[in-house]
């Protein structure tokens, strides 16, 4: 079994970027704590796209996602001094985004529910049609999950966090993370077999490929 054998190149942005980056980001946060605007700008550029994608997928609303991104960076700016470096910078920042997203969800849950059918994400030209289609499928399937499960899925599969990191971000026990993903996978497996179980999907894909090829031959 190969790591990431399931993933579409367009879907996963490598986000676990190693200890050197963590050290760099820890340094940036320390400078932000001293009021260094250049450092803040740099951290903003490192995280904006990642957070915006994560939150747009999560909320399916650009306006809410953008608001949460701004709120998150505002907290980073104000609270940088309280970052002690006992967690990774990415875990700290995602944890803030997670709490902000939860609050935004609570205050706009009714509205979001009402608009879910109407607010379709506009198509972008940056990805091939098949990837776009896949994303749309996945987006619709994810929308069926309870928000905690959807978050766990995003943090694991989209952002590539370890189980321990997700537990830190969501401020819950490791076993709760495993259980949330277990239930999410069960539900996604019914909706999207090829995405929920990468191992079965690879085998299934091969089998189906050979069947359809031989089926086409006279």
């Amino acid at each position: 079994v190969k790591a990431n054998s399931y993933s579409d190149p367009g879907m996963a942005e490598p986000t676990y970027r190693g200890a050197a980056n963590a050290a760099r980001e820890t340094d940036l946060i320390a400078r932000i704590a001293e009021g260094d605007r250049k450092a803040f700008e740099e951290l903003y550029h490192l995280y904006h796209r990642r957070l915006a994608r994560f939150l747009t997928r999560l909320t399916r609303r650009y306006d809410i996602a953008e608001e949460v991104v701004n709120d998150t960076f505002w907290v980073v700016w104000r609270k940088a001094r309280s970052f002690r470096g006992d967690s990774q910078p990415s875990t700290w920042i995602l944890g803030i985004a997670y709490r902000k997203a939860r609050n935004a969800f609570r205050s706009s849950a009714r509205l979001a529910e009402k608009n879910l059918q109407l607010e379709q994400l506009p198509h972008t030209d940056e990805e091939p049609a098949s990837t776009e289609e896949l994303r749309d499928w996945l987006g619709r399937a994810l929308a069926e999950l309870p928000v905690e499960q959807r978050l766990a899925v995003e943090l694991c599969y989209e952002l590539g966090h370890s189980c321990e990191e997700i537990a830190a971000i969501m401020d819950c026990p490791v076993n709760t993370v495993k259980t949330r993903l277990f239930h999410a996978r069960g539900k996604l497996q019914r909706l999207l077999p090829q995405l929920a179980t990468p191992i079965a999907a690879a085998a299934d894909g091969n089998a189906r490929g050979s069947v359809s090829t031989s089926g086409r031959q006279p």
Partner: protein
Amino acid sequence: MMTETCSHADAWLMLPWLANGRLSGAERVRVEEHVHGCVQCTR
């Protein structure tokens, strides 16, 4: 905690991190060994 041989339930819970490549070395070995030897997993 997982013992040397990983049960199917344990391995199944860990699959998301086998897929995203974020299992530690020892954990990965245990889960991979289970997956390769398990009828349910390779089905």
